[in-house]
């Protein structure tokens, strides 16, 4: 295994629940919900770690804490040995540059009033990325990287399909030269054929750029396709983490087993049964 790029230890987040009037008057502290409970994992260079779990298991909160879109309560996050939680101002922006995020909803994560080219170029210029002085070349380079034609640059997001938009979001993230890509349910909103194309794109990007990718998804089938290692989250805790094949074929934890068992299969178990269309 190559060197560790991102390291997370005992990361914890509590969300305060609203206090009742009684609690407020008596000055009792309100209840809080543990969204993420002492989670630890490492991510190596060029590795794809799949993070799976049901709704409300804390996957998204965990992902957002990594770049401090949500402030962690406890724990240590380091990138290349540098602490993320202690970073302020310029340092924090530099860390966010190195760890980029692709959001779930491609219909809402792009500014509707900006053309694709403007959005990509803006990201590059803000971080003074090499090559960003030459606008058109810079934009086509990254559009090419996500397999979109250079003519996409003049389009607005509303003129693109969901899959194309998600590619634009990836291109924009790549334009500022990250080392870690956090894909937060990045393919969940897309239909299956488009999903496969995007998953292949992520695999290619890992190979071409040596990106480390944290791939958050609730669909195990999606994770099985890309991940080298898999972490299963349940109620804020990572219940199982290990090599993908190991976790999928020989799950140790009860929750993992039930998750695997409940997952719909793409091929019916009983292949001999006739499938009638229109039934």
């Amino acid at each position, binding site marked *: 295994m190559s060197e560790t790029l991102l390291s997370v230890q005992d990361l914890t987040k509590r969300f305060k629940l609203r206090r009742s009037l009684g609690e407020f008057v008596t000055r009792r502290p309100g209840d809080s919900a543990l969204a993420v409970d002492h989670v630890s994992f490492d991510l190596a260079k060029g590795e794809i770690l799949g993070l799976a779990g049901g709704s409300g298991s804390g996957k998204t909160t965990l992902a957002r804490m990594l*770049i401090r*879109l949500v402030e962690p309560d406890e724990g240590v996050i380091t990138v290349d040995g540098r602490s993320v939680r202690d970073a302020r101002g310029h340092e*924090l*922006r*530099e860390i*966010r*540059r190195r760890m*980029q*995020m692709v*959001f*779930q*909803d491609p219909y*809402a*994560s*792009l*500014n*509707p*009033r*900006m*053309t694709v*080219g*403007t959005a990509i*170029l*803006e*990201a590059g*210029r*803000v*971080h003074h990325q090499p090559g960003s002085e030459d*606008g*058109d070349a810079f*934009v086509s380079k990254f559009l090419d990287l996500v397999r979109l034609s250079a003519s996409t*640059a*003049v389009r*607005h997001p*509303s003129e693109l399909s969901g899959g194309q938009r998600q590619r634009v*979001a990836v291109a*924009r*993230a790549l334009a*500022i030269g990250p080392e870690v890509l956090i894909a937060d349910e990045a393919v969940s909103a897309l239909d299956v054929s488009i999903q496969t194309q995007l998953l292949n794109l992520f695999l290619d990007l890992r190979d071409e750029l040596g990106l480390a990718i944290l791939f958050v998804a609730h669909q195990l089938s999606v994770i099985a396709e890309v991940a080298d290692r898999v972490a299963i989250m349940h109620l804020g805790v990572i219940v199982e983490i290990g090599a993908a094949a190991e976790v999928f074929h020989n799950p140790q934890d009860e929750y993992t087993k039930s998750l695997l068992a409940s997952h719909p299969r793409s091929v019916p178990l009983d292949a001999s049964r006739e499938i009638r269309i229109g039934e």
Partner: protein
Amino acid sequence: MSDLATRPVMKRRRIYRLWRSFLRAQNWELSTGLVIIAMMVLAALLAPYIAPYHPNQINIVDSLQAPSWHHWMGTDFVGRDVFSRVLYGLRVDLLVVAIITYLGLIVGVTLGTISGYVGGWFDAVIGRVADTVIAFPFIVLVLAVVAIVGPGLKGVGIGIIIVGWALYFRLSRSEMLVMREQPFIMATKALGFSHLRAIFRHALPNLIRTSLVYSTVDVVVNMLVIAGLSYLGLGQQAPGADLGSIIASGQGYLLSAWWITTIPGVVLMLFGIGVSLIGDGITRGDLTLGSR
């Protein structure tokens, strides 16, 4: 960003689309409104060339003349040409109303978007100030400011801006609260953009439309307030002309010389209709403000 070769093309396409919808009169409200206001603005700008007389030139012999070929809109009680005075008055009113309304809009929208974005004590302080301003009847507060600054268009202008920004503040603040939760605004944070960039480059273009539409109502209201205060003698001071002061100067002769008050009143009404039509045209939404 602007050197992207595609930028001017987009801009040209946008203007072309507006022009086409104008020609086809798909949006008759907008076209009619624009024609009315354009003519008024043009007349005001060209006042020195169009006006047949000097607006303040007194000619007692020709006082209280009915509209005729010599005096299109008649003359007032000291023989000043009403048409010339209306042109010069329009010049003053249009300029003042535009400055006042859009200064208020800029101040209100700027503070509102920042407030909605950062929240916290900044929002609390500015929000309470806005509440205080809104709690008073509009005209009372303007009068109070005029009392402090002194009569004249300057006092009226300052007064209206002090009151007027608050509504734009509220509008844009509440829109910003919604916008802030949008993934593309969160994405600006993830991308390491500055807050200023997030607010003014990403959020603002997506929420300015409401304020712009509201400003078409505001312009009319402000125009009437300026005219009203001039009518009361608190705005434009004699002998300078503005629509309100011309109307006021004619009220003693309403029965014998109706034209002095009526014609400037009609001009004021036309302005109101024109601006409202533009507002309706924009709200109809088949044209794009900026890009999509």
